[in-house]
């Protein structure tokens, strides 16, 4: 999958991958042992692409995103692998240089805008901070840019709102401030960590639309982490499904949703209520999420998998192509989903 670009991207001539994550492994090191929390994750994001990473809590999706932004929590470190952005290797890059990328090249939008914004600083100044530092604008010019960015995100009366403190704004407005902050230096890559989870459904729709528009206008790429399958379907073109720190399935959103090729993806889709199929029964995934600290050499999903065989308990399945542009980490994907006997 690494060498062949994702389908839909190949149609555009001359497009290279803006972001390439290869065999990224994240872990917590202790004196005598280490726990791997993200295991050999690889994916590519082309310029202008919108890439979704889906998984449940603890699947490693947010950690993968944080590794790209160099915002891993204390104790979690990149153990191996590479993150290439626009041809530059980010892993091991010197701190100052990497810091310089954040803002004009890569920006991040967090889940909870109330905790991500500085409570004692006016929102306009917070937005203006990036342009002043990275674009070298004067205080006045940066403030004007902040106000115009706020207007761009659909905040009514941006000049007045720029003087507000975060607590004076509603959740939807705060999330728009976060977006205005992220786009203020015109980044080429926007990382979103569940940007709409804390929002109401009508505001969520507005924010998702806004993100799509901005990406199209600025030609920015999006990496979108969420647990909400329906949101991914509305926002992204390609996706990766993560389970227990590994990618278990990748492909185009449409194809994966219509025809999942990994039992976990199927389980997720079957357990989520679908507004368009109200009478379809919800089928929960039995059992509990895998314990990352004690990972046997076996398929991590095997204890919960309805199709489990002996071989699943002896070896961990690699992410392998199952169809053009589709990868799945299941030994029996063809057999289970295509009824082909191997």
């Amino acid at each position, binding site marked *: 999958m690494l060498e062949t670009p994702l389908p839909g991207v190949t149609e555009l001539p001359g497009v290279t991958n803006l972001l390439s994550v290869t065999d990224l492994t994240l872990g917590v090191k202790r004196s005598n042992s280490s726990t791997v929390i993200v295991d050999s994750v690889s994916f590519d994001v082309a310029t202008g692409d919108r890439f979704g990473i889906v998984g*449940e*809590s603890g699947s490693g999706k947010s950690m993968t995103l944080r590794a790209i932004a160099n915002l891993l929590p204390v104790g979690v470190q990149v153990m191996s692998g590479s993150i290439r952005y626009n041809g530059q290797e980010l892993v091991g890059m010197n701190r100052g240089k990497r810091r310089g990328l954040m803002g004009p090249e890569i920006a991040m939008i967090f889940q909870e805008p109330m905790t991500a914004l500085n409570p004692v600083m006016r929102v306009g100044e917070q937005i203006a901070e990036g342009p002043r530092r990275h674009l070298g604008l004067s205080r006045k010019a940066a403030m004007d840019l902040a106000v115009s960015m706020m207007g761009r995100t659909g905040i*009514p009366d941006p000049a007045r709102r720029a003087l507000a403190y975060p607590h004076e704004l*509603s*959740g*939807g*407005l705060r999330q728009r401030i976060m977006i205005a902050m992220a786009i203020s230096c015109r980044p080429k890559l926007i990382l979103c960590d569940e940007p709409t989870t804390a929002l*109401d*459904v*009508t*505001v*969520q*729709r*507005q924010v*998702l*639309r806004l993100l799509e528009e901005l990406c199209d206008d600025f030609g920015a790429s999006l990496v979108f982490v969420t*647990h*909400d*399958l*329906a*949101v991914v*379907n*509305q926002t992204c073109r390609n996706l990766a499904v993560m389970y227990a720190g590994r990618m278990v399935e990748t492909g185009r*959103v*449409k194809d994966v*949703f219509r025809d999942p090729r990994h039992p976990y993806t199927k*389980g*997720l*889709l079957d*357990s*989520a*209520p*679908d*507004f*368009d199929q*109200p009478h379809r029964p*919800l*089928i*929960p*995934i039995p059992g*509990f*999420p895998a314990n990352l600290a004690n990972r046997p050499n076996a398929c991590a999903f095997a204890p919960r998998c309805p199709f489990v065989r002996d071989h699943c308990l002896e070896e961990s399945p690699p992410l392998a192509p199952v169809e053009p542009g589709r990868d799945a980490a299941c030994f029996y994907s063809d057999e289970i989903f295509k009824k082909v006997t191997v």
Partner: protein
Amino acid sequence: MSVDEAVLRVSSITKTYHLGNVLLERLSKNKESHSALTALGGIDLELRKGEILALVGESGSGKSTLAKILVGSVAATSGDVFHEGSPVPARRGKDLTRRIQMVFQDPYSSLNPRMSVGSVLSELLLVHKIVPRREVRAESIRLLNRVGLDADVLDAYPSQFSGGQRQRIAIARALAVRPDVLIADEPVSALDVSVQATILELFKSLRDELGLSSLFVAHNLAVVQHLSQRVAVMYLGRIVEVAETAELFANPRHPYTRALIASIPRMTAESVNDDFVLEGEPPSPFNIPQGCRFHPRCPFAVQACIETDPALMPVAAGHDSACLRAHELPTFSSFPVCQEVL
């Protein structure tokens, strides 16, 4: 729809919070409008025996306030609550407290971390004299089995459980005192999809097997559609529409309900509804618009909507809507915004 069917009924419930800060009031320019927050502006609703009634609306619409008034943890400013036809006094006796129980949103903060599961349950069983002391253990095990947990969790503490398991414990605690009514405030919104499905199935089985009546507060409409018999839609402290679930989603008769339905992120790409995106955010509950409270955001608003505050009126059998133009709204299947009425 006789009154006898209703296990819980509220009539003309209002709830107003006063800032109570003289200095703040003096500083505020708009003295009249900013001094009081209207959380609920006259609610009439009944919960029928053996049904799951969903209460949906955006944050700040007052759904949690209503839930708290029903369970008795917040007192209404005016209006009455009736339990099986008889009025509920402001200070509830032990028996009434027992009959109406609550399950909270966040299972991480709603369980006492210092009490084992067994002691949580036995305390309730003894205080309310549900079973004699020697049967407490057997009854606790029976309750845990009812919610899908084993007897060996009796000695465990909440920190040892996952979110879904904690929510099961919270439900077992609510069931311990054998209530008639369960008030659940967003019980699945903190859980992962695969776990959410199991809790939804549990609520269904409680209704089908124990005949329990539940009020289910939620903001995820796909969940609501899956679980409930009837849905009440709230906007800014009022109920704007009530109907049977299938009827409400197939034939919504209030513009706000339509906007909510149009905003639902869909699982299948073909059904994306992009026709109607609600602009703006709900007005402040400190300053509720004159006339219909939805008119500033309503694409169908006419002059009469600014002048008249519409009451919740029947529009069809078992279907009430608080819209002056409920009968004039275009059919929902072809639902472009009507430009000419703007």
